[in-house]
């Protein structure tokens, strides 16, 4: 059975450095497919494809809300040609009802242990409109290893330097963060992969730099410590979301190769200042993630926050505008108060106001957002700060003997496109 697995393109944030990372969801999904399937993966951010390629079933994997309209467009074209289309992934789950209008079938939940049922139905010509496995989370033993051999690897290099590979050791999240839909998508129960399976997957990844994409590494201290002990022998360097604020955990994280973390900076408290200092004490760099437009932020609060960022020695910062994604409390609150004025999912990119903020106009919020980027990177550009982070990891790799020189054959290429060095 020939499956074309498509990851639709989306418009990247204007302010972000354009780094294209190899997508994680599609290759984790592909690992759950039975052996009789032949998978052709297309990351549309990097590759084009022809609708005339021979295919039995099209699977569209979507992570972001800003991907869904493009995903629907692809599906509409295939379906006009009489080819069946199955949708899955995070943003499929967030936009399931609308996606069903463009799909032969929508898959809700996680694929492991369930996807064969769908393919059996497809083979019999009896594919259902909806497969709802939201209440049947798989045995974590069944997860992975992700099929990274499906990538066109050379596309994920910038001037000879390989991008990080994405990896996950757990699913679910017990926290209840205001702008986040993870508890809906992966459930509120923390679910860990077995350590032997984690080690097995780490061993398959031909990359010494990773992005550990677990929702947070602050859910279960004992598990997190064991995870880091499992990771130490692989000598990878990695970035991740928040890590537990515990000296033993942070010490093990550093030993396991924690390179930098994404840490939300949501106020100007000593707690935040100390939190960042403690990461630095263990040699872990910090990229602050700063969400603007929250209901408790006046213009003065945001300006104070921008000043504060200059005092806490962040290594990088990324600013976004609160975006009311479906299945979040932010969405519920905005909906109740009729504050969402833009329902075009292509605009849900987290860099534009699609709602009426509590204390400023949407236009003013947009200006403050632009100002935040400019002021943080006024004295040292994003590229310069990233270069410092890169040098840090290179030094570590040289010390541990894991450094890989940039690929000379890709020196004049950035994500598959020629660049003048």
């Amino acid at each position, binding site marked *: 059975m020939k499956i074309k697995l498509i990851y639709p393109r989306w418009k990247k944030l204007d302010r972000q450095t354009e780094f294209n990372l190899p997508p994680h969801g599609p290759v984790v999904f592909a690992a759950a497919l039975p052996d009789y399937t032949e998978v052709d993966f297309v990351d549309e951010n990097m590759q084009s494809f022809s609708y005339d390629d021979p295919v039995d079933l099209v699977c569209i994997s979507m992570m972001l809300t800003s991907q869904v309209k493009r995903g629907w467009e692809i599906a509409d074209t295939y379906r006009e040609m009489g080819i069946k289309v199955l949708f899955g992934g995070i943003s499929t789950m967030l936009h399931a009802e609308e996606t069903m209008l463009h799909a032969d079938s929508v898959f809700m939940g996680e694929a492991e242990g369930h996807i064969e049922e769908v393919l059996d139905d497809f083979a019999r010509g009896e594919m259902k409109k909806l497969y709802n496995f939201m*209440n049947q989370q798989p045995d974590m033993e069944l997860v992975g290893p992700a099929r990274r051999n499906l990538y066109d690897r050379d596309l994920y290099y910038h001037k000879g330097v390989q991008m990080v590979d994405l990896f996950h050791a757990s699913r679910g999240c017990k926290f209840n963060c205001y702008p986040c839909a993870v508890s809906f998508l992966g459930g*509120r129960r923390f679910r860990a992969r077995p350590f032997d399976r984690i080690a097995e997957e780490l061993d398959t990844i031909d990359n010494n730099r990773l992005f550990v994409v677990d929702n947070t590494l602050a859910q279960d201290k004992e598990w997190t410590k064991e995870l880091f002990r499992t990771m130490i022998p692989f000598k990878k360097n990695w970035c991740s979301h928040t890590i537990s604020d515990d000296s033993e955990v942070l010490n093990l994280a550093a030993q396991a190769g924690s390179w930098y973390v994404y840490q939300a900076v949501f106020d100007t408290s000593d707690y935040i200042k100390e939190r960042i200092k403690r990461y630095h004490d263990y040699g872990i760099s910090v990229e602050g993630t700063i969400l603007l437009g929250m209901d408790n932020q006046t213009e003065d609060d945001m300006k104070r926050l921008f000043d504060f960022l200059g005092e806490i020695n962040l290594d990088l910062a990324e600013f976004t505008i609160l975006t009311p994604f479906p299945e979040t409390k932010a969405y519920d609150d905005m909906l*109740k108060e009729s504050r969402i004025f833009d329902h075009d999912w292509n605009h849900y990119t987290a860099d534009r106001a699609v709602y009426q903020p509590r204390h400023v106009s949407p236009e003013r919020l947009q200006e403050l957002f632009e100002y935040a980027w400019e002021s943080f990177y006024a004295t040292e550009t994003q590229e310069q700060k990233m270069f410092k982070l890169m040098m840090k990891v290179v030094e570590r790799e040289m010390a541990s003997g894991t450094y890989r020189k940039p690929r000379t054959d890709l020196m004049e290429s950035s994500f598959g496109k020629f660049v003048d060095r």
Partner: protein
Amino acid sequence: MKTDDKYVDRLYHFNGKWDMPGICGLKVVRKSGKTIVIATNLYDKNPGTSISRWSAQLATIICSELEIDPGELVFIERNPNIHSRLEFYAETFDIVEFDREGSHFANPVWKRISGDEVDELIA
């Protein structure tokens, strides 16, 4: 969430969006020809759909199971204070008004009311 909360007499289990099992707090007060139902969001104690997202369906099923005349229902959605540093987790109450199609509710519209107003309603 403690069930001895003055707005929560019991926990109520329901099937939410995509059949995901959900839990909310519930208080039902019958008074002067009205039945006031206060449904409380339990945030992280609720494994399924938030009541904001499921209010019409929830009101429908509560009326059916608790034998409440839909015409007498006053449905209040409560988001309790979880003592977060973020003020939008402060306690809020909304009266939710619906279109009625027989015994089913649809198209919720929320109207913010104060705790004092709720107390007056249920006194």
